[in-house]
């Protein structure tokens, strides 16, 4: 009997052709943003903190595509170097809590009982505590700086992932393949991490793309409020804060970093949307 191979192995290209449009566009945009961040020194002749006091508040032109700010720094260069601050921040604050959030949630869902009860109460308390108050307290104790924001986010951001993973685990744990895994005598660790985890992380993966955007916005928001990164750092929110005094004379200092935020956010939202469609073809997507 001869069988016709249904799909070749190494099917990345086949997979990409099946992506919905939003996922393709979002991915392309996101890759471009990443490349722009990586190759920033080759894309602009200026450094992010290079001052040119003779050319302050220059409107966008060929020499300065995004104009210059009140110290004569090139806004385009600062926006490009800002990618190096904002994107890694977004990745770390999204995916580190996601890992332990999903693991904790999955265990809570699988075991139930006292572990579940205690974890869910801790989670309720964490969710109930206002985030901005928490970060102000942490900054007040430890001083401002990006590391303290990491601490605050690591303390709180896992909650949503834990909830999502727990909810999915409550469904998955009653499925036959989990029972089959138990019947075959596998240990709890193997069942939860190897068998169940890939099946309970769908909604967390989809949620993470929106969470990513929210975290970048959060850093910008905190920097805007003076609780985030210290001034000379080319962070988008900090740039918007610095530029708002010149909004009427030099709109580009605020607007163009803001636009960078919007484009990054849009790219990630498109990815999230597309992933939800692609992953959720058999399931309900959450976001």
């Amino acid at each position, binding site marked *: 009997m001869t069988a016709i191979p*249904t799909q070749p192995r190494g099917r990345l290209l086949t997979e990409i052709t099946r992506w919905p449009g939003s996922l393709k566009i979002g991915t392309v945009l996101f890759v471009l943003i990443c490349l722009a961040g990586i190759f920033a020194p080759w894309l602009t002749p200026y450094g992010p903190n290079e001052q040119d006091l003779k050319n302050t508040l220059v409107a966008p032109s060929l020499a300065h595509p995004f104009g210059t700010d009140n110290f004569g720094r090139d806004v385009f260069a600062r926006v490009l170097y800002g990618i190096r601050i904002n994107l890694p921040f977004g990745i770390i604050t999204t995916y580190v809590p996601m890992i332990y959030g999903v693991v904790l949630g999955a265990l809570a869902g699988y075991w139930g009982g006292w572990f579940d009860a205690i974890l869910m109460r801790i989670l309720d308390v964490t969710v109930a505590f206002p985030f901005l108050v928490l970060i102000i307290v942490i900054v007040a104790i430890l001083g401002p700086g990006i590391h303290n924001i990491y601490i605050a986010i690591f303390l709180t951001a896992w909650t949503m992932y834990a909830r999502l993973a727990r909810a999915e685990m409550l469904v998955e744990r009653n499925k036959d393949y989990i029972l089959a895994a138990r019947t075959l005598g596998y240990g709890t660790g193997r069942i939860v991490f190897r068998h169940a985890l890939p*099946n309970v992380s769908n909604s967390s993966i989809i949620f993470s793309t929106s969470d990513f955007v929210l975290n970048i916005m959060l850093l910008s928001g905190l920097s805007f409020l003076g609780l985030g990164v210290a001034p000379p750092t080319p962070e988008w929110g900090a740039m918007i804060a610095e530029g708002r005094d010149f909004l009427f004379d030099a709109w580009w200092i605020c607007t163009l970093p803001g636009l960078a935020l919007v484009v990054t956010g849009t790219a990630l939202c498109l990815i999230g949307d597309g992933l939800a469609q692609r992953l959720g073809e058999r399931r309900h997507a959450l976001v």
Partner: protein
Amino acid sequence: MHLSDPAKAVATAVPLLEVEDLVVEFRQRGRVVRAVNHVSLTLGQGETLGIVGESGSGKSVLCRSFLRLLPSPPAVVTASRISFNGQNLPDLTEDQMQAIRGTDISMVFQNPMGALNPVWPIGDQITEGEVVRGRLAPANRRKRAIELLTRVGIPAPELRVDEYPHQWSGGMVQRAVIAMAVAGAPKLILADEPTTALDVTIQNQILALLMELQAETGTALILVSHDLAVVAESCDRVAVMYAGRIMEIAPTDRIFVAPKHAYTLGLLGSIPRIEGGDQALEPIPGQPPNLADLPPGCPFAPRCRFASSACAGADMTLREVAPGHFSACIRANELGGVA
């Protein structure tokens, strides 16, 4: 196939599994549902025992309780003895129990599509048990997977081994599940309605496969089904369950020819027969009893056309009515001529 076979009779003399007085209750919010009610049975080495009964009669719960697979709470399992291969299962620790699962006892499930993990290639799943136990080097995994798939009759296994469950049909996945169950060379396979989710032609193939593997390896098999035809074809002995109790247990050829329990008789009467002409079926009237509120005596009495006043207080222990043929019906001897 039958008990009259002398080789078989010797084999059954040393039971593989002996269950004595097994009770499974689900206790929740003050309600007690007794799903398995004082069940005792024995199973010989290499024997095939069919368990039949309608939905909710406790067949699946009975099987899962041996392997300690029921969620506890709410399930509470008590038994004077569940002796398997010389070990008393209730005395074992969870770790020892885990070692028995998948190696000495394994299970085949009703819904094959749900029984495999959707995100793993099939070949990896059917060999995982052996790899985990260190019986198979990861390097030989693929070879072993192909070997197992060949054994359960999957065509072109070297192409199929890397595929995912959703790419296979239900019958093929059930073959893979069976491959997974026999991979550890178990002494006992619990097949929980293995053919119910499949269409009739595939049912026969799967049954034939189970029989064939059993003949090859000498594994004992408990075949749970609500389909009397499936059981008639494949089992040495049949136990009929109703409302958590074994009503009758007998060699297959006897139970279909000379049933000694009114419930078995009722079940046989409700099968459509091709030679029966336009004669109406005789369904059993009424509903199974509420397991949370069982009547005393015979649970089938309220629906039984042979019930007498004595049935409500009947002693439900199994009595031997013929060699190897046990029935819990107090009027068993009066039923002789009815079949």
